[in-house]
């Protein structure tokens, strides 16, 4: 029961991070939000393994942690190729 309550907390955090990812305003806010969302998925997968009674599936959670890091490094590096206005102009939404 405690674990389910914790999962609801994690899900709420996911929603909050999603809202930040949608609002922006700069690209860095979005990267940060997605990065945080990724950490929350790691926790989510770990927890759901315990809730469903098969905690052996933690390998997946471990892998998510890795993917998350690679992804963040990739955006950091590749968003720099462009002129900076590409980063700033993230601000307007149609």
């Amino acid at each position, binding site marked *: 029961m405690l674990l389910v309550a914790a999962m609801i907390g994690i*899900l709420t955090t996911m929603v909050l991070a*999603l809202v930040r990812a949608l609002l922006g305003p700069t690209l860095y806010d979005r990267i940060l939000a*997605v990065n945080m969302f*990724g950490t929350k998925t790691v926790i989510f*997968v770990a927890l759901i393994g315990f809730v469903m009674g098969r905690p052996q599936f933690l390998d997946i959670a471990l892998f998510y942690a*890795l*993917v998350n890091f690679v992804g963040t490094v990739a955006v950091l590096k590749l968003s*720099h190729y462009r002129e900076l206005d590409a980063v700033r102009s993230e601000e307007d939404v*149609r």
Partner: protein
Amino acid sequence: MTSEIELISLVLFAILVVTAIGITRLRGLYGAVMLAALFSLVIACLFVVLDAVDVAFTEAAVGAGISTVLMLTVLALTRAREAVTPRRRLWPAGIGSVLTGGLLIYGSQDLPAFGARDSPVQRHPITEAYLLESQNDIGVPNTVTSVLASYRGYDTFGELAVIFTAGTAVLLLLSYVPRHDPDFERRKLLLADYRILRVVSKILFPFIFLFALYVQFHGDYGPGGGFQAGVIFASGFVLYGLVFGIDNARRVVPRWLLRVLISSGLLLYGGVGLTSMLLGGTFLDYDALSPSHPVMGQHVGILLVELGVGITVAGVMTAIFFVFADRRVLQ
């Protein structure tokens, strides 16, 4: 307990729909790609909830990992903003999707109830064969692995050939000699300047490759296997290329090695099939590999075939990333 799971999956679905709407509305393409990565993470969570752990593994590797990185490299080569979509496009698109969706929902009434035990999928005799008899015939606890590599090994061979072909096509499309671009060096940000990032990545590499080996060879007992391990290997090289630059990564994994890897994995897979034919069985019939002890033959066959899958997938993914990241800005 099931009602809680249902609630959780509802929340995940809501997040997915909102993310999809966000993707259409964002004109900054970096933001859209970030949202696509987030979408893929949530999809992977849903796969775990729906008991498809191997799929969740692959989706995270592919969708949130490699696919995002490739989209970002393409963005770095082209313009990062989208033009305003003209209104005349929106209405037909909206009406078309709503109509198609309505038809699909109408058609979905004939589907069996979600999670029903007596649906045709679950009642089919193959279910029994895959879940129970496979334990005696093949002796691999992860039935996804035994179906993938043994029962439907021929199918997987075809999929691997598709990956091989797609990888070759990408290499053909993009391996012209890059034009000299004087701005390239200036635009290039060496992440190696970030000292903490560099040190931490260096610590991580052995763990990443160890983990990939673990996933490769533990696929019989838990979620994992050749596809996933291949992508993990590739993401290790991708991280190396990102942090230390493509030229250095090319030194670690040169072009000729990648070409050898890409083809040798597929050859290994096909070779196992041919060997089993030469030993008197049919194509990819692993029982023939060890006639006195068929289960042993199955184990060896699955191990080799998964290794072939892992090698080709790792080679293709790494090669694709290198060839994308090696582009100079084209303008």
